[in-house]
């Protein structure tokens, strides 16, 4: 295969790191399903099939300065953004130390102020106007940052998407809307969700830049998000990007996807799985050697093992704590 990352300014080290984060997201996800089947955690929501887009995107942003509003599948994004495996596990076990919500919210509802990561809720799409508000505030203050927000293609049909995109367009705000189109909104297939060819076709209606890219390719994600970020920094306003992915798992651990799609369809999609194809790419260039791969897998497994252990043993929040933080408390 041709080396594509060099032209993008990435060293071999960089892309290995990129891959490692994708793989970590995948391995965490796989572990969560095991823990769920073993009755240790009641609920899983997955990232599988979307890691490439998430991690590629993160690498195109300034992870020391920019703001992110991730959605519940963004394991790859939040890991790249600085959340630790231990924190991910604390989140999934809903323990007091979970930095996202201390066990108050369901898993995958990310939020971490230290990392400039907005707090996410369950009603979909509400994060879009928030990300626009971040960009507006930054512009008012004169801060040169980008506000990055993700959401599913189903969610792009909510009014809040439209209103947020339009607002960002009018004020030419440095926002990047990245739709992770995984072909399903729970059981609802693309044809029943929208009639346009691409979600990015909507960009024109907001006077913004739009682009659809291969969501299985982290380098394509990087390129698209980089272009959007550069535009944002140049004052050229928001972008609407669409990562074409596929949801490899059921919607959540409560779902049975075989009621609405076939094994064959999923099997076909798996052939394009970004974690696998990116590994192939790295192998073919001799960057991911067998040894390195083994090392990496081991490092990840160890981290997940220890983190799981830690999270499982960690304490739940004190039941009396439910009365706290409805409003600000002056200690």
């Amino acid at each position, binding site marked *: 295969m041709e080396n594509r990352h060099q032209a993008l300014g990435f060293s071999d080290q960089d892309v290995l790191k990129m891959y490692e984060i994708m793989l970590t997201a995948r391995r965490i996800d796989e572990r969560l399903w095991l823990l769920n089947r073993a009755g240790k955690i*009641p*609920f899983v929501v997955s990232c599988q099939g979307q890691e490439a887009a998430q991690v590629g995107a993160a690498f195109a942003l300034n992870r020391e300065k920019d703001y992110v509003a991730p959605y519940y599948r963004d394991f790859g994004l939040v890991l790249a953004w600085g959340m630790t495996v231990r924190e991910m596990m604390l989140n999934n076990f*809903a*323990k007091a130390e979970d930095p996202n*919500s201390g*066990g*108050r*919210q*369901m898993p995958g*509802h990310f939020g971490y102020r230290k990392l400039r990561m907005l707090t996410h*809720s*369950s*009603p*979909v799409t509400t994060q879009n106007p928030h990300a626009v508000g971040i960009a507006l505030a930054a512009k008012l203050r004169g801060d040169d940052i980008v506000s990055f927000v993700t959401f599913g293609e*189903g*969610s792009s*049909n*909510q*009014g*809040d998407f439209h209103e947020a995109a339009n607002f960002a367009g009018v004020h030419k705000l440095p926002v990047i809307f990245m739709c992770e189109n995984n072909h399903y*909104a*729970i*059981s*609802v297939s693309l044809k*029943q*969700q*929208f009639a346009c060819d691409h979600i990015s076709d909507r960009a024109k209606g907001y006077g913004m830049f739009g682009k659809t890219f291969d969501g299985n390719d982290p380098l394509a994600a990087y390129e698209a998000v980089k272009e959007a970020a550069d535009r944002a920094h140049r004052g050229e306003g928001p972008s609407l990007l669409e990562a074409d992915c596929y949801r490899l798992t059921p919607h959540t651990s*409560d*779902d049975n996807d075989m*009621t*609405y799609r076939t094994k064959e369809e999923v099997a076909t999609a798996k052939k394009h799985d970004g974690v696998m194809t990116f590994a192939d790419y790295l192998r073919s260039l001799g960057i991911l050697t067998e040894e390195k791969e083994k090392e990496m897998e081991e490092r990840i497994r160890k981290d997940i093992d220890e983190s799981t252990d830690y999270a499982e043993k960690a304490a*739940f*929040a004190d*039941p*009396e*704590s*439910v*009365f706290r933080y*409805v409003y600000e408390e002056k200690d």
Partner: protein
Amino acid sequence: MAVISYIEAITQALKEEMERDENVFIMGEDVGKRGGVFQATKGLYEEFGQKRVIDTPLAESAIVGVGIGAAMYGMRPVAEMQFADFMLPATNQIISEAAKTRYRSNNDWSVPLTIRAPYGGGVHGGLYHSQSMEAIFANVPGLKIVMPSTPYDVKGLLKASIRDPDPVIFFEHKRAYRLIKGEVPDEEYVLPIGKADVKREGEDVTVITYGLAVHFALQAAEKLAAEGISTHVLDLQTVYPLDKETVIEAARKTGKVLLVTEDTKEGSVISEVAATIAENCLFDLDAPIRRLAAPDVPPMPYAAPLEKTCMLQPDQVEHAIRELAEF
């Protein structure tokens, strides 16, 4: 009489109404092949086809708004909100449009739309899959809000809602879906919207409540009967507009009133019940009106021990009845 679950009562009601009236159709997220995330519409897509069981885009305001339009045309849409929490994007369509259409058009247009929505906690649903949403809508003239407690009531009231000429919000307690079972007649029946139902006669303490808490009250009443405490249990069934007469009568009967809701306390529908009693039969009371509700914090955290602190517990009801009896 067959014994069925709360959710089976929903499916049966939908099926029977769809068979009876070809204007009835279902729309919502995942209601088709998937049969609904709770399986309330299970089998209906197969029986009635995709024209009458419509999977919609993920857009609640459109689900309700399109439903309103279809209802204006003469159809009888049943719109499913996947979780009651997710009705909020549709608030404007519900309050500004569905509720006011008849009034604003001076009786020219009407909206016979049913909005089904699973509500309630205790299912590890966290902040956005556990809420009670009725109080938000229970001050909007033009709406009717039905919240049944038993499979029998569910079936009869859902059928009534679909046949109702005006918009009805039909809240289903999601924890009751599989937990609560009960007898349902084989023959067809419809129950009246707007009526509270005495679920148990008693002399010492009156409990007024609705939804899952009715069962908590009945269990407590059963237990307390052994201690010689006789509990009167009134199930509101329709929480808006309130069946004031029946409420007043039930309060008068024992003079000691416990109001129970799973919702957070301040501004809940039991506040209206309390106000109605305080206004109409204050001097019949032998004890202050007592309200039992969830704490005034966003309901409810996900982690099990936190959820438990926020979710109404059966022993709280028992305890409160006993206290009132001893007052």
